């Protein structure tokens, strides 16, 4: 069991408040990702859960027990660190067993656990080596093995993949996800990489300036962002933000000197709110070459001047301009080649998943 409740948690260093009242309810067995730019407080929040930093106010509960004032070793939590933090003078097997040794687990049981963990992570052949004799990926495995051996109620991962090269990172990502599926233990995982967040999480908490901006499933976060910051932070290439004049219940897009009207969801609410301009948020994959089978009131066709294209392989990102704002469209490779050649094209804009934000506050409108 390992459900976590975080209630009104604050943390200050001197005069600066790093956490400003965090509330999170993490279910048992859940894979929760804390994501945000550096300095957003995600690492501080994780250290507070681990007990490595004292909180200023608020409570942390695991399975309903208030552990706010317990020392790290009494919390039954294991952690994987960004730098791995392997004990340099100990062999791999002692690195894995050290936590059990400190907890006075009988020797035979320790040996059995180390063997099991080593088998699970395929590091049996490394057990007698020192950390300095391991590659980055192997160290990463040992660091996970050390956490696994303890069989804790909660695993904490602090940017565990950021020191690996790109290929290994993708491999380990999948491996961590498989491991979680197999063990079913609650994981709280900190990262600044939104791809990692999307691919791994059951639920994501997006943080900024010591506050949770949005807490939801990857689907919710991606398709229904709570504000402009979340919409901007999640997704690559990022969402397009276009400031548009409101005309009745429609938005105006200007391209190559011509004006086009764009129908959007919640248009009726726009009308009621009486705003002059709003920010239209639309993801690149909703701006494509015309696709005949997509139809409806929310599908428009608008010309676009193509400045540059970036072929990614499976698709091509095209850069154009609307309303004096740079726009990224996601085209098929073939359409991308055509666009590059002709320098302009008609793109199809599907606003069914578009979102609207207040031009000043960035707050979400409607929805």
């Amino acid at each position, binding site marked *: 069991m390992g459900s976590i409740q975080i209630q009104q948690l604050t943390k200050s260093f001197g005069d600066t408040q790093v956490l400003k009242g965090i509330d999170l309810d993490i279910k048992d067995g859940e894979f929760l990702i804390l994501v945000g730019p550096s300095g957003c407080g995600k690492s501080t929040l994780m250290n507070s859960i681990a007990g490595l930093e004292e909180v200023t106010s608020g409570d942390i509960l695991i399975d309903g027990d208030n552990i706010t004032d317990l020392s790290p070793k009494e919390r039954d939590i294991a*952690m994987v*660190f960004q730098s791995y*933090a392997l004990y340099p*003078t100990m062999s791999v097997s002692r690195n894995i067993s*050290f*936590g059990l040794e400190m907890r006075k687990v009988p020797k035979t049981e320790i040996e059995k656990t180390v063997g099991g963990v080593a088998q699970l992570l395929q590091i049996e052949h490394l057990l007698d080596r020192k950390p300095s004799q391991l590659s980055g990926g192997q160290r990463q495995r040992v660091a996970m093995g050390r956490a696994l051996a303890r069989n804790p109620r909660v695993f904490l991962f602090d940017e565990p993949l950021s020191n690996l090269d790109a290929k290994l990172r993708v491999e380990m990502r999948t491996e961590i996800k498989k491991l979680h599926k197999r063990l079913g233990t609650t994981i709280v995982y900190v990262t600044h990489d939104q791809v990692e967040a999307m691919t791994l999480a059951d639920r994501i908490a997006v943080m900024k300036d010591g506050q949770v901006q949005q807490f939801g499933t990857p689907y919710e976060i991606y398709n229904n962002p709570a504000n402009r910051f979340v919409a901007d932070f999640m997704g690559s290439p990022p969402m397009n933000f276009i400031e548009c004049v409101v005309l009745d219940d429609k938005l105006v897009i200007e391209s190559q000197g011509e004006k086009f009207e764009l129908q959007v969801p919640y248009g009726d609410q726009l009308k009621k709110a009486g705003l002059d301009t709003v920010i239209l948020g639309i993801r690149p994959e909703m701006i494509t070459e015309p696709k005949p089978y997509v139809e409806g009131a929310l599908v428009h066709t608008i010309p676009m001047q193509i400045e540059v294209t970036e072929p990614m392989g499976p698709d091509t990102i095209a850069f154009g301009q609307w309303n004096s704002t740079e726009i990224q469209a996601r085209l098929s490779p073939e359409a991308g080649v055509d666009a590059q050649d002709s320098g302009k094209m008609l793109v199809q804009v599907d606003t069914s998943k578009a979102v609207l934000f207040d031009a000043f506050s960035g707050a979400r409108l409607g929805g």
Partner: protein
Amino acid sequence: MSSLTLSKKLYKAFFITLLLVFALAYLGPLYVMLTTSFKGIEEIRNGNILALPDALNGSAWVKAWSSACTGGDCFGLAPYFWNSMRIVIPALLISTAVGALNGYVLSQWRFKGSNFLFGALLFGCFIPFQVILLPMAKLLAWLGLANTVTGLVLVHVIYGIAFTTLFFRNYYVGIPNELVRAARLDGAGFFAIFRHVFLPLSTPIIVVSVIWQFTQIWNDFLFGVVYSGPGTQPITVALNNLVNTTMGGKEYNVDMAAAVIAALPTLVVYIVAGKYFVRGLTAGAVKG
């Protein structure tokens, strides 16, 4: 082209010769001490200081060790040699142990004010000890430790801690704090982390600290001459007394044998572990 390389070669030969000449100059005093110590007193008076001894005459060494007069008594340097050992060994062990724990706290368990304390301690590396001589004498008298070996041990521990702490703090500051965090989550406490994680990493800096303290305390004269009494003097004080005792004719051979005896332990340490000695010397001076 070939003339250029020739002039380069000549330069190089000249520089190397220069280096060797300097090496001889630096070795000179040691050579003179050793040769003089094996000469008889007549040979010294008639010959010159650079001459090799006619025969290896060890009598000056025997006298320096066991029967030369050092001020009041005439037991040679032997008792003072052992005095120094009795002062040096406990003092260096205690100050290194305290320095290690201090450095561990100051680098890995910082708290509000710990950096200030480190600064205050660092300053202690530089104060001229003359400024604490008088009150320390009072304190030792008050503790009943005046003129005792224990008192000297205490003084050397107190004024050695600044250096040993500096060594260990600067060494441990390079070890990532994540190790401490990982070990805390593994259930280890303050001392267990020190013992299992930090101590096994510390061999080089322990050697640096021990060698530094050994040479500093063995070579100390100021504390020795101020805080020791008859019978508890360290070897530097005894050597100075031996050389400056003016009873009868000067026995330069005995003086030199005594000087070599007094220098021997630190020289041996230096030759065996010179690398660490240099590291200690430059620890506070060169950045990084």
